[in-house]
């Protein structure tokens, strides 16, 4: 078999290369030739095509994402910002947290179980590569209509995949979202978040310094996973013999990943790792080019050393394989024996595949011939950058003009409450979350159905420095709001996550985000994207929380129909004394119930308009970020002083749903009275609001705190009894609320 070596490329300058089949444009291919001063070899083309893909290079989004840095609020908490595998935040007492959310949308549509499972696996390796112990996961999910046929195929598979992989890793699942909308049929969203913990001085980076240091590939062996495009290269061009069509589906092995986690942590503790990188999309190509580009600039790799699951793999395929559960480390030669011994203890195969050099070139050999010889930075950092055209969608003005004002208001508010509470988006997600282990590691302070997940820090790592602190996390996003106004929609996503963290008593500190959109080549989608990024960056500045990292997922569309623009935002907060966390809902009888924040008649994109009328139009609720900030200040301070017995944020479905969920938390009813127009008071989705439960004797102090921060505080009533009573409006036994809330998803999914 002939190998397309550099020598061969030099002597066959005009040989046509299948760059188009690999998704590369003519001008991009011309740039590669210009960089190399010759045509690329097949292996070099493999590297450039994947490194310059949208997924790896962010070529369409880069110019916009810059705002997260240029508009970033000053924050002392940020230890590692965007651009690394994950951001790292200072959480005090010498501790740091690293967290990131990432999409695995398309693979989860093709093979729901494995697609979702490997999504979890990938994000966990990102967190490991920062030097951290992963301590929890979350999952933000969007599916087509709950009653649509394909949803019954996709949802159970996705949930099982997340459940199986996360549970096997021993990572508690502490939160997430499940939402349904027909716009996601054919394009489900599977966004997985992982959070990790490390000491501030133990951060690891993806870098390969020190000529002479060894490059070690460890973990699973390399097979033909997810290399769809590469088979074009391996077969069509150079050889006549036809290769079997390679599978696009990656299969995860959570057991191997669990071993990798423990193995990596022991390697870090033994201080035998100079640089480390996980292998995700673009596998060996990505890890070698990025490590080399950030180190002393050179690396020599012998591809024959890569352990293969399938010995027939060609070098191009090895370079592009997305086999899971692999990591690459840079190790001092003197540390190799210790490194290998730790890998052996954990049954993790490890192989030296190369060496760091100071040549400034990434050189790879195959059976002694040089098949890659490139400046690594040109693949890793100097990818193409597009200023894609964008403009407001043709129908946007009409969409915004079609307000919900004309929709008929319900006569029976009790029936409306039950209708919403039993609708798929608002119903209990226990069918999903009961499949997730939320207890493992015994540090889970709050998990579903709490507004935010919360973990104690002190015991998270055996023998660790004691601290009373905890961290809280929430992810949120509302595609309908973003469809109506992507600028405001992104801000509302941040506001909700920020609020969900604050109601537990934690102070919001930092942001991660996953931006799920249609095709960037559609100027109308690109406008949605640009607006969402602008909105999120502005909101982060106002709220004083920097973006630490994230992920962009484009091409979520079927034909020319894109999903609703769906920015999903994750917020991480810190609580100084985790014992002071505020549980979600009404936890005792006889507590005063108060509503914080003002309510206006805001029904654009609301759950009521969606469920009762199938309507989407008008404008989303106003994103009043100053009000969000004051609200959070009050909630965090009140928790610190021990004034709150329970709380719950208001979001989809408004006050009515918040009251019902608060009653369901412990099966304790409440009697409340409204002061305004009942329908608006109960179902409007105005932002910057929360429900609190306060001991009567603490109420005056709490009200004074609200007044001090100009947060409106309305006493609504008191907890207790067997029913939720809204005086003169409705009364529903808690048991009926429960049946409606918990029965909905099992009735659909079995």
């Amino acid at each position, binding site marked *: 078999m002939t190998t397309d070596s550099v020598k061969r490329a030099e002597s066959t300058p005009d040989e046509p290369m299948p760059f188009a089949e690999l998704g590369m444009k003519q001008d991009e291919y011309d740039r590669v030739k210009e960089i190399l001063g010759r045509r690329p070899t097949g292996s070099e083309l493999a590297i450039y095509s994947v490194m310059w893909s949208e997924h790896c290079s962010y070529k369409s989004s880069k110019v916009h994402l810059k705002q997260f840095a240029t508009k970033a609020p000053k924050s002392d908490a940020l230890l590692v910002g965007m651009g690394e595998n994950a951001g790292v935040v200072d959480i005090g007492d010498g501790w740091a947290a690293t967290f990131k959310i990432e999409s695995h949308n398309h693979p989860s549509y093709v093979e729901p179980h494995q697609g979702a499972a490997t999504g979890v696996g990938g994000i966990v390796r990102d967190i490991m590569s920062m030097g951290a112990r992963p301590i929890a996961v979350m999952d933000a999910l969007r599916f087509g209509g709950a009653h649509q046929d394909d949803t019954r195929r996709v949802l159970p598979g996705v949930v*099982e995949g997340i*459940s*199986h992989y996360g*549970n*096997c*890793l*021993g990572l508690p699942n502490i939160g997430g979202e499940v939402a349904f909308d027909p716009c996601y049929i054919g394009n489900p969203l599977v966004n997985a978040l992982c959070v990790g913990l490390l000491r501030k001085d133990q951060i690891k980076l993806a870098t390969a310094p020190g000529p002479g240091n060894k490059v070690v590939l460890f973990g699973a062996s390399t097979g033909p996973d997810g290399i769809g495009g590469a088979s074009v290269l391996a077969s069509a061009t150079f050889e006549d013999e036809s290769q079997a069509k390679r599978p696009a589906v990656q299969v995860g*092995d*959570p*057991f*191997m990943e*669990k*071993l990798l986690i423990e193995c990596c942590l022991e390697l870090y503790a033994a201080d035998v790792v100079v640089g480390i990188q996980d292998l995700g999309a673009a596998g060996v190509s990505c890890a070698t080019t990025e490590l080399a580009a950030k180190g002393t600039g050179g690396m020599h790799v012998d591809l024959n050393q890569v352990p293969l699951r399938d010995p027939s793999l060609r070098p191009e395929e090895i370079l592009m394989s997305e086999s899971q559960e692999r990591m690459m480390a840079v190790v001092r030669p003197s540390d190799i024996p210790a490194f290998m011994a730790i890998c052996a203890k*954990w*049954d993790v195969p490890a192989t030296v595949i190369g060496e760091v050099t100071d040549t400034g070139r990434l050189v790879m050999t195959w059976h002694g011939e040089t098949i890659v010889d490139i400046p690594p930075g040109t693949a890793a950092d100097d990818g193409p950058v597009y200023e894609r055209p964008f403009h407001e969608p043709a129908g946007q003005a009409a969409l915004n003009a079609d307000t919900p004002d004309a929709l008929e208001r319900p006569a029976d508010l009790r029936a409306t409450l039950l209708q919403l509470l039993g609708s798929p988006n608002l119903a209990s997600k226990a069918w999903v*979350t*009961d*499949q*997730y*282990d*939320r*207890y*493992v*590691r*015994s*540090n*889970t*302070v709050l998990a579903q159905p709490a507004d935010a997940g919360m973990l*104690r820090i002190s*015991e998270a790592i*055996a023998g660790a420095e004691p601290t009373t602190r905890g961290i809280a996390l929430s992810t949120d996003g509302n595609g309908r709001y973003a469809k109506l106004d992507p600028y405001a929609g992104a801000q509302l996503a941040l506001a909700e996550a920020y609020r969900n963290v604050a109601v537990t008593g934690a102070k919001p500190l930092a942001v991660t985000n996953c931006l799920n959109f249609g095709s960037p080549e559609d100027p109308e989608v690109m406008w949605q994207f640009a607006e969402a990024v602008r909105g999120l960056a502005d909101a982060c500045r106002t709220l004083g929380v920097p973006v630490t990292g994230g992920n962009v997922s484009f091409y979520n569309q079927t034909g020319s129909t894109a999903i609703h623009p769906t920015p999903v935002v994750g917020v991480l907060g810190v609580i100084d004394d*985790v*014992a002071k966390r505020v549980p979600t809902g009404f936890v005792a009888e006889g507590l005063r119930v108060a509503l914080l924040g003002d309510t206006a008649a805001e029904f654009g994109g609301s759950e009521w308009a969606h469920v009762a009328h199938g309507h989407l139009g008008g404008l989303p609720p106003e994103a009043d970020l100053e009000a969000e900030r004051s609200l959070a200040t009050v909630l965090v301070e009140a928790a610190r002083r021990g004034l709150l017995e329970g709380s719950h944020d208001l979001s989809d479905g408004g006050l009515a749903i918040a009251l019902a969920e608060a009653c369901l938390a412990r099966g304790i009813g409440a009697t409340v009275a409204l002061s305004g127009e009942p329908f608006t008071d109960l179902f409007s989705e105005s932002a910057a609001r929360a429900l609190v439960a306060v001991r009567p004797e603490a109420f005056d102090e709490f009200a004074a705190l609200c007044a001090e921060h100009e947060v409106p505080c309305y006493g609504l009533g008191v907890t207790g009894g067997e029913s939720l009573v809204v005086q003169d409006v409705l009364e529903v036994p808690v048991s009926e609320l429960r049946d409606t809330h918990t029965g909905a998803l099992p009735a659909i999914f079995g």
Partner: protein
Amino acid sequence: MSAARVGVVTFPGTLDDQDAARAVRLVGAEAVPLWHADHDLKGVDAVFLPGGFSYGDYLRCGAISRFAPLMEELIPAARAGLPVLGTCNGFQILCEAHLLPGALTRNASLHYVCRDQRVRVESTDTAWTNAFEQGQEITLPVKHGEGRYVASAETLAEIEANGQVVFRYVGGNPNGAMNDIAGIRNEAGNIVGLMPHPEHAVEELVGAPSTDGLGFFTSILKKLVNA
């Protein structure tokens, strides 16, 4: 007198070992880490086989772990009377090793289930349950995909007749287990296995909304101190 020493076993893929060790320490005993690949019980007074997915739960839960070098030491020691508690995956391993009768199979719902479960203590005559009251109802989390206890009709009749059923699910059976069995013991009562997780119900702040799991650890302490 030196503290009671409770060994906590780690297999590749064990998940709840830190939790188990923490619970052991909470009652004032010493938690001694035991490693699957060692032929060494380190002279412990009792052994906790924690939950997880040892060997990925591939093949059958507990099937591969049962052959670990450590198990070659543990199996005869347990037969000779060493107190052993297996929770979840630990229970599965004890059944695979034939230290306890029966087997654990795929949940009838075919789904993994994580929830707070009420169970009734049916036997206080064991090394691990002597601090409970007969018939006491406690709340412990369950979290498993293969927890449906099954046994042949004869075995089932035998363990019922011998009083070897230690825990029964009440208020709903999470996995379809025969006779609502959540946990069993050997005849001697030194070996107990159960699907629920006492180690996740020992602190107010974290885990399940109960501290009923503490009883397991105070039981073994009482047993060892009195021994």
